[in-house]
């Protein structure tokens, strides 16, 4: 999932300050799962903003809505009536959701309420960790399903650096050594021979190095 975290209230207040009627729009997919922008977070944000503006002696009308996914036009369509009733939208979706909204609703200011941080998983209650860099050239089959591009601090592709201790990364003792995990996993799978395969330097042209990426599926176009 895409992991995000809410911006500080001071920043959100500053974004919202020019407007008197604001729609807080949540997204019911990734940001809901990471407690940044689902229905519950929308309700808390709305209440906190109302209280914050009361403290400042200002008035604000806040409307709440959450759609299933802000990054798809067919889902954001249902927010059109609420958007028409308000001067601006504080979106608690990821950056893709905010931009999809901006593309769809051209005359409404779109304000981001969260910082989109990474593609990750819920490792344990309360802890989300980055697992994928979206590099565009996946080699997880070689590494037993553990990505050294993302999870090794040095992004080493042909074996460990030798600096890890007790399975932890020497860069951060809180982080598992990706290569420790890869070797454990390949051992369990009986695939240690994978490590005899030389992995050439990463071709970053498939990543953001060549600008925004596009995926075109001609078979879906009539």
């Amino acid at each position: 999932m895409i992991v995000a975290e809410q911006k500080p209230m001071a920043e959100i207040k500053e974004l919202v300050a020019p407007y008197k009627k604001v729609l807080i729009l949540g997204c019911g997919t990734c940001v809901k799962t990471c407690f940044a922008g689902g229905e519950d977070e929308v309700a808390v944000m709305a209440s906190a903003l109302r209280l914050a503006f009361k403290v400042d002696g200002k008035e604000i009308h806040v409307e709440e809505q959450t759609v299933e996914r802000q990054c798809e036009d067919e889902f954001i369509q249902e927010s059109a009536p609420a958007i028409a009733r308000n001067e601006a939208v504080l979106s608690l979706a990821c950056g893709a959701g905010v931009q999809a909204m901006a593309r769809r609703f051209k005359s409404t200011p779109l304000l981001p309420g969260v910082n989109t941080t990474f593609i990750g998983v819920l490792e344990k209650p309360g802890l989300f960790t980055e697992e994928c860099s979206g590099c565009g050239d996946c080699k997880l089959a070689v590494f037993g399903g553990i990505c050294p591009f993302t999870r090794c601090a040095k992004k080493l592709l042909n074996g460990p650096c030798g600096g890890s201790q007790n399975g932890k990364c020497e860069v951060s003792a809180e982080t598992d050594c990706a290569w420790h995990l890869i070797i454990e996993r390949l051992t369990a799978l009986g695939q240690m021979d994978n490590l005899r395969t030389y992995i050439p330097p990463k071709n970053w042209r498939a990543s953001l190095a060549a600008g925004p990426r596009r995926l075109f599926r001609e078979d879906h176009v009539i």
Partner: protein
Amino acid sequence: MRNGSKVKVTVFHCINVFSEGDSRLAAKGENVELKFVRLPCSSLVKDVFLLRAFEAGADAVVVLVCPEGACRYVEGNLRAKKRVQWVRSLLDEIGMDGNRLALFNLPPGDSSDAKPIIQKVLAQIGTTPQAELSDRPPAGQA
């Protein structure tokens, strides 16, 4: 505090701590308007409930939970504690003073401890009831 106005306190409490009737007696005679929200377990005190209590005019919100290690549902009071801590920090962030929200552990069935707890919270916020917040002039005005 504005003259003549009662201080409003909303009390969220686990029904395993004490009954509503007991707590009313504990606050009898005070210049305080108490509102009780009974919960089957304190873990149900969601963050938005706490904020909406303030929106509804509460000057202070008190959450009363079972002692740690004595929750009938194992960790409900611990979850409530974490949530209260988070909402306190949010209140501080928006300039409302996190001290308006407090959580206390009470022995089950002993409502006599509720009164000093509520008085303690009132003492903390006594000079700045929420009612005065809305009386402030808009930002930028004298």
